[in-house]
């Protein structure tokens, strides 16, 4: 039985489980997006990242994104996972999987969902660089005007 999933989690994100969770026999497509930890920011070496979240609100805002994409496209199920804590280079920070009867809907909805997540979901990233510096990264404040 396919269903929606919205979760902030501490442990490793495994793509297959979310894919399976959103897929039903009536679906003809699943689009997945994984955000992964890159080894640099504009050339400055990244050692690792730390993510923090306002967990309950983040899960609520992710559910709102799922509701939005279901209004805009013919979507079956939406799954959004975001990890918190320390993440190493190459690990998955965010995973989105969206199922639909036809491919165009899930492709467009997945792109929309990750863009919205970066605007509205209360999650923060701290970069710890290989040169020893670290800082909380702040997104575009004007993005939240579109909350």
């Amino acid at each position, binding site marked *: 039985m396919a269903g929606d999933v919205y979760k902030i989690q501490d442990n490793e994100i495994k793509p297959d489980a979310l894919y399976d969770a959103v897929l039903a026999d009536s679906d003809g497509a699943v689009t997945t997006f994984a*955000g992964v930890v890159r080894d640099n920011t504009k050339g400055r070496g990244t050692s690792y990242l730390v*993510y*923090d*979240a*306002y967990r*309950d*609100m*983040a899960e*609520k805002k992710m559910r709102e994104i799922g509701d939005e994409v279901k209004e805009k496209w013919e979507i079956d199920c939406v799954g959004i996972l*975001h990890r918190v804590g320390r993440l190493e280079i190459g690990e998955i*920070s*965010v995973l989105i999987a969206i199922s639909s009867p036809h491919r165009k809907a899930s492709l467009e909805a997945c792109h929309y969902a*990750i863009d919205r*997540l*970066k*605007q*509205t*979901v*209360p*999650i*923060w*990233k*701290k970069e710890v660089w290989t040169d020893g510096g670290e800082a*909380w*990264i*702040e*997104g*575009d*404040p004007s*993005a*939240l005007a579109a*909350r």
Partner: protein
Amino acid sequence: MNIKVLFFASCRDLIGTGERKMTLPDGATVMDLISELASEQTRFIDMAPSLMVSVNQAYVERDSELQEGDEVAFIPPVSGG
């Protein structure tokens, strides 16, 4: 009234804790809470313009009135993904 106030990321670092219980006069607004925090930590006033505020996990404006038992959070520009 008694409220719970949450701080995240750079804002938590500035305040020095992630959660505080605070007492405000009845009828106090989000702006009144910001003023109270700024009186304790002057650098909060520099950070405040960039912060979003949520009450009970919904974004609100500065003139929103607070209620007994509210959970208020100060939310720096988000950077998930």
